[in-house]
């Protein structure tokens, strides 16, 4: 009984593993296509799918308690907020680069910090 259960389990894991490797190869292949911004999108989308498989099946979020799911969702939401709200700035900030003179530092007397290297 338990053995059968374990065998089923192992089979499911093997299928997930095969899917992960297939997705990895797909993502590798996509990098050689000329997709412009699509390269990044496809690469990330596949990475998200792979992560979802790992989290959902390997990490057993599928059968986890509500508390654990809330923890996972909160973490993901916070990460997206960090990236999202920072992107609001970067997406709408006009870029006006200015010539930047390399700083010429006087060497430190205290020795707290190495002398500015050649840059």
């Amino acid at each position, binding site marked *: 009984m338990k053995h059968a259960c374990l065998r089923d389990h192992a089979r499911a894991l093997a299928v997930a593993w095969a899917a992960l490797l297939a997705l990895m190869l797909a993502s590798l292949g996509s990098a050689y296509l000329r997709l412009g911004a699509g390269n990044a999108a496809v690469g990330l989308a596949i990475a998200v799918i792979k992560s979802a498989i790992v989290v959902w099946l390997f990490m057993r979020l599928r059968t986890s308690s509500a508390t654990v799911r809330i923890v996972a969702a909160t973490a993901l939401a916070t990460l997206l907020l960090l990236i999202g709200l920072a992107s609001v700035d970067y997406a709408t900030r006009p*870029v*006006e*680069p*200015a*010539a*930047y*003179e390399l*700083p*010429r530092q*006087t*060497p430190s*007397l205290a020795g707290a910090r190495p002398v500015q290297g050649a840059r």
Partner: protein
Amino acid sequence: MSGIVDLASDAGLSWLGGASSVAPRYDLLFAAMVLLCGTVALGVLVAIVAFSIRYRAGAGRGDAAAGRRTRAIEIAWTVTPLVIFIGLFVWAAHDFVALYRPPADALPVYVVAKQWMWKLQHRNGRREINELHVPLGQPVRLLMTSQDAIHSFFVPAFRLKQDVVPGRYTGLWFTATKLGEFRLFCAEYCGTEHSQMLGRIVVLPPAEYARWLGSGSEQPSLAQYGFARFRALGCSGCHDPASTVHAPSLEGLLGRTVHLQDGRTLVADENYVRDSILVPGKDVVAGFAPVMPSFAGQVSEEDIQALVAYLRSTGAPAPGDPQGARR
């Protein structure tokens, strides 16, 4: 928009000393906020004091059952602030957005901030250090960048501030509405002498401004520039009288007789200063450790001349403040 400006002047807020077209709108919003928040704070305070007296233990007015049904009240004091806050946001945002829309005819001025000075350049190439002359009633647009850390261009009388960031330009525009001199502060902490990174804005009548702008392609005096380099290169970090590093004071150095560690004496002249900067180990002053690093490759000939000019100015009988703008 001008209606708001008029309203502000009508409200009698000009005594707050605002000196730009932005200031009256700022003062009005500020006054409104003080009024609103003051009322709320006072309300809370009065409530706490009144309850504390009326319902003090021993007064026997306590009622445990009071205040159990709270939902309506809670919703009321959730929604009311929400509405007020959105109103405040819109008002403040409206004024803020205007700061991002400089008029097309604004006079451009280029600003470079570095530790710890402001270098400004007008359209016709006239340069200033720690001083900015602008005409009354005419929009001026600053294009600013930094050569090192982040600085911030802050003119309290104009109610304006903008960080100056290395590697990119940031902008700031204003129209001065009062004649006179106004303080310029660096408001973003930028290192040792952050609090000395001061300057002034001089607002002139347009005709006088035109004369001023035309009269001078002359640079700021060499001594003035030298003082700025004295600080920017970090000399003042050790040689300032207030410094914790044990280094000789350089005030009135030129012409002074210097006693060296190996027993020689010499009279400090320009060449001595140059040697001390480039080959500091050569003539070490008696009583001081030879800790000064060489600045060879870091200072230009122009810098050395300027530093000498500055040192000479400190030796004059009545040196005066080399930075006219300070204090």
